[in-house]
């Protein structure tokens, strides 16, 4: 085999991998580009010209900022509730042996294995048949979001807990720490990265959800619903501003966290 051939053989997987990454990133590049777009007409969705205008006036499209704020409020509340309840469940699943553990495991896994349209339509069926059909809105969406975030929180925290060395806690207790002290000083800090990951995941799932939300939102409009609505008419470039801003915020959060972690561990 020639030298070029050998090099190719060694790196072909990596090259395919990079092309796939490019495929994952192409649309994000478009979102960032389109956030600077100055559309020639209202219905145009091509890049017509560069402007800072959309970034200076992100709230210009009627209802956009209200929708973003609704999504943020639902996202934060759903994250707090789902993370708290899910973390408790994860502790029970990993640290305790009890009757019905396998069933509980399956029960937690099932929502993740159901298509969103089924989850959303069954909740709607419940709300309608129990007489809440007229009260669809903020609270019903929140209930739905906590429901589908919960399973993701449990598996994420569970993975972290399962990989933990139990001897660390035992060592603490050998050194006369009470069970309570051992938990807050040893266990909790070690599980925290898993809880943070679960919270981030919950928030992004909640902020992004459309299918379940759309069925249970009534007249409340979340950000994805705003995007959906405007996709049927004209797409204001400010939507891409929100998309880009979210992306930047997440990148800063993740990379900042990683930097802080590295500095600490040095």
């Amino acid at each position, binding site marked *: 085999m020639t030298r070029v051939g050998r090099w190719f053989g060694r790196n072909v*997987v*990596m090259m*395919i*991998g990079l092309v796939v990454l490019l*495929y*994952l990133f192409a*649309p*994000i590049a478009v*979102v960032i580009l389109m956030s600077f777009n100055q559309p020639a007409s209202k219905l145009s*969705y*091509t890049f017509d010209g560069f402007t800072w205008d959309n970034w200076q006036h992100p709230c210009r499209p009627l209802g956009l900022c209200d929708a973003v704020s609704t999504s943020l409020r639902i996202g934060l509340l759903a994250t707090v509730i789902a993370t708290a309840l*899910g973390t408790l*469940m994860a*502790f*029970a*699943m*990993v640290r*305790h*042996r*009890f009757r019905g553990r396998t069933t*509980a495991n399956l*029960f937690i*896994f099932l929502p993740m*294995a*159901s*298509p969103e*349209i*089924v*989850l959303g339509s*069954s909740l709607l*069926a*419940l709300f309608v*048949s*129990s007489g809440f*059909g007229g009260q669809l809105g903020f609270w019903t969406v929140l209930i*739905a979001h906590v429901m589908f975030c919960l399973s*993701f929180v*449990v*598996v*994420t925290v569970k*993975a*972290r807990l*399962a*990989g933990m060395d139990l001897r660390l806690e035992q060592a603490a207790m050998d050194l006369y720490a009470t069970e309570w002290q051992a938990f807050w000083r040893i266990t909790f800090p070690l599980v925290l*990265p*898993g809880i943070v*990951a679960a919270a981030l*995941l919950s928030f*992004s799932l909640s902020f*992004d959800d*459309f*299918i379940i939300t759309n069925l249970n939102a009534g007249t409340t409009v979340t950000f994805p619903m705003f995007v959906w609505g405007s*996709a049927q008419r004209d797409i204001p470039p400010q*939507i*891409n501003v*929100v*998309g880009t801003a979210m*992306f930047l915020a*997440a990148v800063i959060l*993740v990379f900042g966290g990683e930097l802080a972690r590295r500095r600490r561990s040095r």
Partner: protein
Amino acid sequence: MSAVGQLGATTTAAKPTPPPQRSGRRLTAYLLLLPGGLWLLLFFAIPLVSLLAASLYDPNGSIENGFSMTWHWQNFGDTMADYWRPFVRSLWYALITTAFCLLLGYPLAYAIAIKAGRWKNLMLALVIAPFFTSFLIRTLSWKLLLSDNGFVVDTLKWLHILDEDGRLLATTSAVVTGLTYNFLPFMVLPLYASLERIDTRLIEAGQDLFAGPITTFRTVTLPLSMPGVVAGTLLTFIPSAGDYINSQLLGTPKQRMIGNDIQRLFAAGAYPAAAALSVTLMAAIVVLVLLYIRRAGTEDLV
């Protein structure tokens, strides 16, 4: 990137061995499970029952007059007669999507887990990054990328893969491209988690025993990564079968999927028909998944 690694590890977590029991701990377990379990019971399990009930309501009811329970089993036959085409199409699209995700996701996961070295965390972060912008907006970007005078269409025409008057937008290819794009990370993460766990010395041993790269892959790497393959294919197949966003934004009514019809029927207030379709979809998925898991021989998924 601890947070990122966590996400990858979710689906194939090792089975933990619970510590020995002390009296009273069992009660604690139930107390810990209670709030979350109640939430799931009230807003996941009971709704499924009411969906099943709604699918048997009298189809002549309306939101204004209410629906009456008439055990109308014909709802299932009637809706299937009307909607079998989008139904079969959804399962078919989901199947193609899963195949493409596996084809694209495996090399990427392999590159990250085994080849990337110190770039591992960065590449993993790049796989998760698309989650950070709203997926509706990203799907809308595909509309632009695949548009008739766009770069992709021009290149394919230049390569004579696409006819001179061919187009991508509003075709099956566009819908499957969008679906594959949206669910690819769900394939890559579990694959990565199981590939990363493989002891690379096993692969080296295969090579030492004069196996070619393809034989080594077929007899060592692939079997060891099967839990990831099973988890990844399920996590892509299930959501894509129920999706209607890609077909709505990138396709035409000819690419309509069952999700479009369920959503439309619910919005129109035709609850019995919509619920019947929803139940049928769920049942079809459960049957397919059970058959698949039995075939793949991995029942230890959860």
